[in-house]
């Protein structure tokens, strides 16, 4: 009897057809991609296929048989438990091991001596295994690699790490089978292609034919604030959220940032002290122990509600959860549906998700979301290509372990999607980068990171090897700063972009505490407890995530339906007074109109534009416009944006009228103008931060080790400007600009937006005061800078202003 049949009978479960299909395909020796929602046994669909393969082997080779890669540590624990239970229930000799950043040294040593049959791990840990001497032997009998939540990894540099790892593992064992598990995204076929690589044609796609019913309900305030201020509305809705929590068994409250999570946690407790003990907080900056506790308590049904971030987005199945609340814009449809799917796990159950807008205009997103779900509009995940930072890191990884032969590795990497277009010359540049630190013309050069011995590239310096292993975990989306009390006690970590906006003396709320920033030094923010009741909480507004183009289009459509009088849902009728106020003060644009508002205040001249295209596109558009307007006269702008529009602010009059007359929104010379705007703003410099960290340029020191590294610290900005000045053809620099094009400015999307606007009629209005549309942008704190004025002239102007005040 097949193991799957035996075990399902034991559980008194009936297998889904997609599970049987997957078992069949695996038995036939295929690789493939399984598209299935969470909560229907997708893990078992793959797992029993893998197990059966092992059991059917006549001669069972020792060592690693399968590798299961997940994006989250929490998830690996979950898979481990499931897999161990199966082995135990069926008394199999298939042992399961776990290898993540949390795995203890003694456990690692044990694994090194004898690997289990199945190893559950993360992308970083796979690379760390490849940084060990003798890794070839570890993987030589490997039969299966399973990549869980592939949709989540694809579109990130961790996805690129998977591509690289697979290219190596396939070379070690050409017979390797690769399976991915993915939720539904817009580009399923591409996702499969990237994962399976050159094996794609022989691979299969298995789709679970399960449709989840999702009901979206927007939580509306009693009265409508006509001048929405980001973040303000949300907390006022605490009174509406509490009854939802009390009426249900167990609720997950998703926020977009950990700060929002902290804020809501505090306010819920303050408003309803009876929640103490049954309300918990879960986000990526909290210690592993705390998170584990929360997850276990959720499983056991002990918690009434958990305020969380994307930390609970994925996989892990919490059966007691029957309600999900999304706080603030979910930014994308796929993400919203995934979160909705965290409730109602019983087959056939309806998933109910409440949407809590954080400012009035956001209310419209509830309407847009419902519409998008019923029309099944899913975003695509755009994969990274030509990520030289990850490639450089990978090459050093191989050099640290057994060393590598360049020709062989080049042939492997060009088979991946990410590096298929990398030329030999570019690959040689990477080799030069790790052996000579770039193009070195100097005899007195002392760069010895990777050395070449008999054609083999290797790291011989132990300090460099250690430095590399420690920095390998740095493929995360943003640079993190450690938060510590002045006395040294560790509190957690915070994204640098947030802290960089605070000044010493500012008070902020973190880890459930009010903290005063004392100083930021060497990647550490030193804080002290503050008695101040209200730590400032800046406008989080969904962090850095932009609105997806699908959702943006939906919003424009809903607004237009209001305009035409055809849209009649709860959200639109509620928003009516705000939209009418917009009409009164300025104008409510029709879908073939682009509204521009010009307002003069004490601060200077403001120009607001509303393309409704999402914040990244707005960032690019604003920079291009700034460049085009600056052709008329030397001018300095401060630029703010949200998902609906953007603002150009200057101390002098902005000649928007002249600019409109001379094709301000033309899609011609777009690429040229984009290049110019990237150089005149801070965009590229900021983008370079992650690249510098991954490529090993920014070294953050040895955690907890007494090694002097202070003299090795420099900011990524410094590297950026030095490369700009001395190594224009540096591939990391090129990569930075390419990423800006593709991911930040989203040039394809930007071009489409310009083309759309070209066909629109431009409506220029001069409102006397801010309109409901402009107010939330005006109150945005974070601003991009643009200037083509002479620095000296600006200093003198500011000085004169200073003297006047």
């Amino acid at each position, binding site marked *: 009897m097949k193991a799957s049949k035996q075990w399902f009978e034991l559980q008194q479960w009936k297998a889904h057809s997609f599970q049987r299909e997957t078992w069949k395909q695996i038995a036939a020796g295929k690789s493939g991609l399984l598209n299935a929602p969470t909560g229907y046994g997708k893990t078992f669909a793959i797992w029993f296929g893998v197990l059966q393969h092992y059991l059917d082997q006549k001669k069972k080779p020792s060592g690693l048989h399968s590798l299961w890669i997940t994006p989250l540590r929490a998830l690996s624990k979950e898979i481990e438990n499931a897999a161990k239970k199966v082995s135990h229930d069926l008394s199999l000799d298939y042992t399961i091991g776990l290898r993540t950043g949390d795995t203890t040294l003694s456990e690692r040593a044990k694994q090194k001596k004898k690997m289990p049959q199945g190893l559950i791990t993360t992308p970083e840990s796979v690379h760390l295994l490849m940084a060990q001497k003798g890794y070839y032997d570890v993987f030589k009998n490997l039969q299966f690699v399973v990549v869980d939540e592939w949709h989540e990894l694809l579109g990130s540099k961790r996805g690129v790490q998977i591509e690289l790892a697979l290219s190596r593992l396939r070379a070690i064992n050409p017979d390797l089978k690769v399976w991915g598990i993915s939720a539904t995204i817009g580009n399923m076929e591409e996702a499969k292609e990237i994962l399976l690589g050159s094996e794609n044609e022989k691979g299969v796609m298995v789709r679970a034919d399960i449709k989840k019913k999702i009901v979206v309900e927007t939580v509306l305030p009693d009265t409508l604030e006509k001048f929405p201020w980001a973040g303000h509305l949300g907390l006022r809705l605490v009174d509406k959220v509490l009854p939802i929590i009390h009426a249900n068994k167990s609720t997950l409250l998703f926020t977009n940032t950990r700060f929002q999570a902290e804020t809501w946690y505090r306010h819920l407790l303050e408003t309803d002290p009876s929640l103490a003990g049954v309300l918990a907080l879960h986000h990526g900056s909290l210690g592993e122990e705390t998170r584990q506790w929360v997850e276990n308590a959720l499983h056991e049904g002990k918690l009434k509600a958990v305020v969380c971030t994307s930390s609970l987005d994925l996989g892990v199945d919490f059966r007691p959860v029957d309600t999900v609340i999304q706080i603030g814009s979910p930014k994308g449809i796929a993400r919203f549906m995934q979160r909705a799917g965290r409730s109602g796990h019983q087959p056939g159950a309806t998933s109910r998700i409440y949407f809590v807008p954080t400012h009035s205009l956001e209310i419209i997103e509830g309407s847009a979301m419902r519409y998008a779900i019923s029309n099944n509009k899913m975003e695509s995940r755009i994969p990274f290509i030509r990520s030289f930072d990850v490639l450089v890191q990978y090459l050093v990884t191989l050099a640290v372990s057994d060393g590598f032969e360049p020709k062989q590795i080049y042939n492997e990497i060009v088979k991946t999607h990410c590096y298929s277009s990398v030329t030999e010359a570019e690959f040689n540049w990477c080799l030069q980068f790790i052996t000579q*630190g770039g193009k070195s013309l100097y005899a*007195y050069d002392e*760069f010895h990171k990777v050395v070449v011995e008999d054609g083999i590239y290797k790291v011989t310096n132990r300090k460099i090897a250690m430095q590399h292993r420690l920095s390998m975990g740095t493929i995360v989306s943003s640079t993190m700063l450690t938060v510590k009390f002045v006395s040294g006690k560790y509190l957690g970590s915070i994204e640098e972009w947030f802290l960089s906006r605070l000044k010493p003396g500012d008070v902020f709320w973190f880890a459930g505490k009010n903290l005063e920033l004392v100083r930021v030094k060497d990647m550490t923010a030193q804080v002290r407890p503050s008695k101040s009741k209200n730590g400032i909480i800046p406008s989080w507004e969904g962090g850095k995530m932009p609105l997806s183009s699908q959702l943006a289009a939906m919003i424009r459509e809903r607004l237009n339906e209001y305009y035409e009088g055809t849209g009649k849902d709860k959200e639109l009728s509620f928003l009516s007074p705000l939209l009418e106020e917009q009409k009164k003060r300025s104008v409510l644009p029709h879908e073939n109109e682009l509204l521009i508002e010009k307002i003069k205040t004490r601060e200077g001249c403001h120009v607001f534009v509303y393309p409704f295209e999402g914040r990244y596109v707005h960032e690019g558009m604003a920079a291009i416009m700034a460049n085009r307007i600056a052709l008329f006269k030397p001018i300095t702008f401060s630029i703010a944006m949200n998902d609906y529009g953007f603002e150009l602010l200057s101390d002098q009059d902005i000649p928007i009228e002249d600019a409109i007359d001379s094709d301000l929104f033309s899609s011609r010379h777009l690429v040229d103008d984009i290049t110019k705007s990237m150089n005149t703003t801070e965009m590229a410099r900021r983008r370079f931060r992650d690249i510098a960290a991954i490529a090993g340029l920014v070294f953050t020191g040895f955690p907890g080790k007494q090694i002097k590294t202070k003299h*090795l610290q420099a900011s990524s900005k410094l*590297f950026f400007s030095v490369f700009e000045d*001395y190594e224009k053809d540096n591939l990391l620099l090129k990569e930075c600009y390419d990423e800006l094009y593709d991911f930040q400015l989203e040039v394809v999307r930007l071009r489409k937006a310009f083309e759309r606007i070209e066909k629109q009629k431009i409506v220029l209005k001069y409102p006397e005061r801010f309109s409901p549309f402009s107010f939330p942008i005006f109150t945005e704190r974070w601003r991009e800078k643009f200037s083509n004025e002479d620095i000296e002239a600006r200093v003198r102007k500011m000085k004169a202003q200073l003297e006047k005040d």
Partner: protein
Amino acid sequence: MMYEEQETQMQIKLLNTVVELLPEKALFLPDTNTLVIADIHFGKAMHFRKNGISIPPQSAERDYLRLNALIEKKQPARIIVLGDLFHSTHNSEWNLFCEFVAYRSGIRFMLVIGNHDILDRSYYRKLCLEVVENSLEIKDLILSHEPLKKVPEGMVNVAGHIHPGFTLQGRGRQNIKLPCFYMLPNQLILPAFGSLTGLYLLDRTMDSDIYVVTNDKVIEV
């Protein structure tokens, strides 16, 4: 033309000593024909490279060229480095500095030791570099690397170490960050000379005067 020439020089008086704040991020004492420079951090690029961090070695040259141009312009008899001359332990860039000093043999070089100057003293001796361990007095000025906590009565302390910068705010939510000379009643903090260094932003206080450095001007703000 005359007017512009004058403007590039910012002359102030520290007690009885006239000093020029130079846009090259250095201080000149005309009475003693002395150039004072803080925080050069020579050898930083090579130190990084020695530790496997690739930074183009050419980036080190810029500061030699800048220093050379400054010497041509002011023709000093003496150069005092206010600490952090060399970034870290010995590397080959030290040879470059030695060549530079040899080429400028007519100038008397002095180094007030800073926290980064951890080279063995014998390196300095070989170069005939005069080493000052703590502070150096020139009439009513007392020169040190780190700003003195207590400045002797009747003296002004000239120091480096801080890498001072200042953010100017303007209308329309504009701001510019620039290196600056930071003047307190009895203390003048010099901007860092080295281009591979960062800025530490200082606030204006009741008794501070701030002179920002743009590309080729020093402007009091």
